[in-house]
């Protein structure tokens, strides 16, 4: 990697410091600019009628009463959008064989999940729109539904897209080494389990929201939305609404959380844009909590049959599993719903030295809300399969789980190398991370305490996970398959006349502090106090072209682009300064807003900039000063930059009530260079909490006929602060060699690792009672059942 070196230990090198976020005060004072804060002249409000059935023929939608209701301007149905919106199909060419049917924003002829939008009412107020939506007479004929993924492939299951002949969307097999021979060896012990992962969802504080504005005089659409990938949406609206790409502006201002929920194409949002175009009036749609549960993508929903063979020394000899996942009636556009299963196949066992590996993944259609990429895509499944079986096998052969990991984890000095599934790995530190973890948690003392308490009838458990996380993806993730999803990102850095830096970036901020680290990098690399940096993200009209924020790429890719741009601008500025000061650029530096040399400050940046901008006459005519620089960056050497981590959970299980209390949680994370320790810790902690949610509480519970039964915050249980443990975070820093910055991602590690650690801890507590549990969330009911009390 070429580029500026030694930028990390300058006087105002902010990189590595816990500088506070610049937008904290603004948000705390209620001055955020969320989509719902936008009020435009003549704006209409949208409310949707959604399918109450999982599967139904739409015989007719009588909208006459709704149209006549007070305040209503228009009622749109699926038929009204035919010819206005080009249907979309969620497939990618590199996921060979993946199929999905064309989708329209509002269902036409048939509704395929409970919550699918059927009609849209546009009225002067949201209240009037809702009143009118209730007046639409929907003549729906419920038809047999295939709701359960486990039976969706049965010969007698209703086929959701008859043209496909079955509900299979995609299938992939990875087969490495000789798995059958390894399992047949007579010196191995085998454990096999069926793991179940419930559906859950993101539950963002700010629900999905959009305000679409269309100006017919310029054929121009402006779409304000609460989302993560403005340029992707720009392409999608242009293509599917028939607009020139440059005539579509997508703006994502403040976003109240997203976790992957807000990176997809939702019918209600496309309909909002289409309605604005049709009516020539601004349209606002803000999802309420109920429709968020019904329509925000869900995640997980996997059933995995898995087995592992280990030898007497605890070495994993083979791993074999079959993963079945239900994705709803369509593959989500444009990222597809096969990526999670693909990740499970790619990532399982990746921390370990493993020769014989077989994994089959099947992705099936079903009549439930769509499943797609959500924080830590595939990771919790992959980690729970391998580390769950590893700890199960350790129990079987009577080996300590830490010892068993030491035997199997890839050695820290063995990179670069590949995982069994063929993932290219470099710069990982599994062994070191595990050592730091064991020391931090006081492992031996905990085990002693556990034994002592067990004798008194108190059942505590300790569970681990050693994990990898996919971060900083290259074009191999989506671009290669034809999706309009940039893997490169850009940054622009501009020196203004006042001496401040105005920077913009194509990565986006949803609350994780992206803007803060961009400012840190720009300030540190260029050499101004951080207060002098203003950051713009999330506006396709003004920021460089790029992918946005997902797959833990904001810091690693967006950050590197910013570093390169700031460095480039610095060189440009010093070139001007050298002429003005009549010295050699190599002897000059920029510190604290001034150009300096060995003797101290020579000129403020504002003096320099004012001269350039206002008094160009003072400069030699052959000097062409540029006080703006743009750089782009993508990962080239690897498909992904993997990070690693080691985590442990300590739990107590109440065997009479089935309640699990998480007593402690420790996470050791190697995300390469840490730009802002506080923000990374927040990301890891938040991720762990979300992972504990999946392990213990969160589940979208469907009835057999496809009705979501707990679509409220009182019924769908997210983790609450009071029952969360202290989460201790430690770092190992192994910078990636793919960039100067050396940062990998950290945003998803906690969510990816915590479920396996918690499951292992619960099972460690239950094993002496002859019980184990392999289904998440691990509710009191399931624990009592595992204990044989029901």
């Amino acid at each position, binding site marked *: 990697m070429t580029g500026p070196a030694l930028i990390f230990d300058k006087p105002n090198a902010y990189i590595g410091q816990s500088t506070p976020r610049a937008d904290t005060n603004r948000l705390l004072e209620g001055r955020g600019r969320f989509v719902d804060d936008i009020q435009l002249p003549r704006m209409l409000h949208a*409310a*949707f*009628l*959604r399918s109450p059935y999982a599967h139904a023929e739409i015989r007719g939608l009588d909208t006459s009463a709704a149209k006549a209701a007070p305040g209503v301007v228009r009622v749109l149905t699926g038929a009204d959008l035919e010819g206005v919106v080009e249907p979309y199909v969620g497939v990618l060419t590199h996921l060979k064989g993946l199929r999905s049917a064309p989708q329209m924003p509002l269902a036409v002829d048939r509704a395929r999940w409970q919550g699918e939008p059927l009609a849209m009412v546009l009225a002067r*107020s*949201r*209240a009037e729109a*809702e*009143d009118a*939506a*209730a007046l639409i007479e929907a003549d729906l004929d419920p038809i047999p539904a295939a709701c359960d993924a486990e039976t969706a492939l049965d010969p007698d299951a209703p086929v959701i897209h008859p043209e496909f002949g079955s509900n299979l969307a995609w299938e992939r097999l990875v087969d490495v080494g000789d798995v059958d021979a390894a399992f047949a060896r007579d010196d191995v012990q085998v454990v096999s389990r069926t793991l179940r992962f419930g559906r859950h969802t993101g539950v963002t504080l700010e629900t999905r929201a959009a305000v679409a504005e269309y100006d017919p005089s310029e054929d121009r659409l402006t779409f304000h939305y609460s989302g993560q990938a403005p340029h992707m949406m720009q392409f999608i609206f242009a293509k599917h609404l028939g607009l020139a790409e440059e005539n579509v502006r997508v703006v994502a201002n403040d976003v109240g959380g997203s976790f992957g929920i807000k990176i997809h194409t939702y019918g209600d949002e496309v309909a909002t844009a289409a309605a604005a175009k049709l009516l020539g009036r601004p349209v606002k749609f*803000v999802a*309420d*909590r*109920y*429709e968020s549960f*019904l329509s925000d993508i869900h995640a997980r929903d996997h059933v995995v049959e898995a087995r592992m063979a280990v030898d007497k020394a605890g070495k994993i000899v083979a791993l074999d599993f079959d993963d079945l996942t239900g994705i709803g009636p369509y593959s989500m556009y444009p990222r597809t719903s096969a990526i999670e299963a693909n990740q499970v196949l790619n990532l399982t066992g990746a921390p370990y030295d493993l020769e014989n590996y077989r994994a089959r993944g099947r992705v099936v259609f079903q009549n439930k809300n769509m499943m797609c990429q959500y924080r830590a895509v595939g990771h919790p499944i992959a980690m729970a399969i391998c580390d769950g079986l590893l700890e199960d096998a350790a129990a079987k052969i009577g080996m300590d789980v830490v010892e068993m990991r030491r035997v199997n984890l890839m050695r820290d000095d063995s990179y670069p190398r590949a995982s069994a599934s063929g993932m290219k790995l470099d710069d990982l530190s599994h062994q070191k991370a595990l050592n730091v973890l064991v020391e931090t948690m006081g492992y031996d003392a905990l085990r002693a305490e556990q034994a002592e308490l067990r004798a008194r009838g108190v059942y505590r458990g300790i569970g681990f996970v050693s994990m990898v996380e996919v971060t900083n993806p290259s074009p191999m993730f989506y671009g290669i398959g034809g999706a309009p999803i940039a893997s490169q990102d850009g940054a622009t850095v501009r020196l203004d006349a006042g001496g401040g830096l105005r920077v913009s970036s194509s990565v986006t901020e949803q609350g994780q502090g992206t803007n803060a680290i961009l400012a840190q990098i720009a300030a540190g690399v260029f050499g101004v106090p951080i207060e002098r940096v203003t950051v713009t993200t999330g506006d396709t009209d003004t920021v460089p072209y790029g992918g946005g924020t997902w797959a833990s790429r904001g810091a690693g890719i967006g950050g590197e682009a910013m570093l390169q741009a700031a460095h480039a601008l610095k060189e440009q500025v010093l070139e001007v300064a050298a002429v003005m000061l009549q010295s050699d650029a190599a002897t000059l530096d920029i510190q604290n807003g001034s150009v300096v040399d060995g003797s101290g400050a020579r000129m403020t940046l504002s003096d320099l900039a004012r001269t350039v901008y206002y008094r160009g006459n003072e400069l030699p005519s052959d000097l062409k000063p540029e006080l703006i620089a743009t750089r782009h960056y993508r990962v080239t050497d690897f498909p992904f930059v993997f990070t690693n981590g080691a985590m442990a959970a300590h739990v107590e299980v109440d065997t*009479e*009530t*089935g*309640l699990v*209390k998480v007593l402690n949680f420790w996470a050791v994370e190697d995300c390469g260079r840490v730009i802002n320790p506080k923000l990374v810790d927040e990301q890891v902690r938040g991720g762990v909490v979300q992972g504990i949610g999946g392990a*213990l*509480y969160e589940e979208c*519970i469907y*009835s*057999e*006929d496809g009705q979501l*039964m*707990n679509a*409220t915050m*009182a*019924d769908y*249980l997210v*983790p*609450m602060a*009071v*029952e969360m443990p202290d989460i201790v975070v430690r770092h190992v820093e192994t910078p990636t060699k793919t960039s100067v910055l050396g940062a990998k991602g950290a945003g998803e590690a906690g969510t990816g690792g915590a479920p396996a650690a918690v499951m292992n801890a619960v099972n460690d507590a239950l094993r002496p009672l002859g019980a184990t549990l392999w289904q998440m969330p691990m*509710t*009191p*009911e399931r624990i*009592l*059942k595992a204990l044989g*009390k*029901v």
Partner: protein
Amino acid sequence: MTDVMHNFELYQPASLADAQELLGDHDDAWIIAGGKDSLDWFKHRVKQPSVLVDIAAIPELHGIREEADGGLYIGAMTTLTEVAESDLVNARFPALAMAASKVASPQIRNAGTLGGNVAQDTRCTYYRDGFPCYRAGGNTCYANTPTAMNREHTLFEASRCVAVTPSDTGVALAALGATFHIQGRRRDREVSADEFFIGPDVDIERMTSLEHRDILLGIRVPGTWAGAHQYFEKVADRNAWDFALVNIAMAARMEGGAIAEVSMVCGAVQCTPRRLTDVESLIVGETPGEELETLVKRVASSGAKPLNYNHFKIPLMENLAARAVRSLV
């Protein structure tokens, strides 16, 4: 879909007389206290009363007063936080303080009232989603079909409807022998928990005996159990801000190591708080210990008729009853 409440008229009377008059004037008037149950119904547009009578400004409904018999009178508008933190309640009726402190979250307890907590509607998801079930005036139960999701529903006393009582405080109040002081259209009355909480066999569309134009003024907890040994425990999927899968309240007096008197009530297993009379009669006169716990587990759930998905409530109930007895050791 639905995020905005329907239109209604809001009245905020400052006296009981005004409140009564308003209720008399409007047939579908809905009393609102802290609003924590009511507003959900309105936001989901499942219930749409045209008139709301907010009783927060009526002075008589607030506060906790000592009674001559050593008991307490708690105004219906007293918040759950006030109940949970009251020194008087903690000293005399810790089971009630504990129950109040286990309701939902601090925010909800700050606004939610004791009266609203005992008068709140059931949590059956079918009913709350607006399915036209028996309780909603229809003619079927969606929660008790071969494919229905009913892990949170009844073990006992189902009668067409299988919804359970959601109230944590109701269970403690029933165990403590509380009475409910109601102002009706013509006269005041005071009823026991047995009469206040009603099952579907009595009236399938109501959870309590409160009728239109009834205002719950307050709850009287008699001195009977003041200062006696008390126990409350609740099991939920999430150990905070979640409704009980099963909860239990007990009050007891010991004499010479044996249980002299006891009152034990379980919640979330039937439409009303369930008095565990079999357990009570089994353990009176006995000495708590492992042996007694085994016997308690045997009778605690006798007669239970689980539905498809709620068998797990049986061991929960048995274990909680045994634990309550264990707390006497």
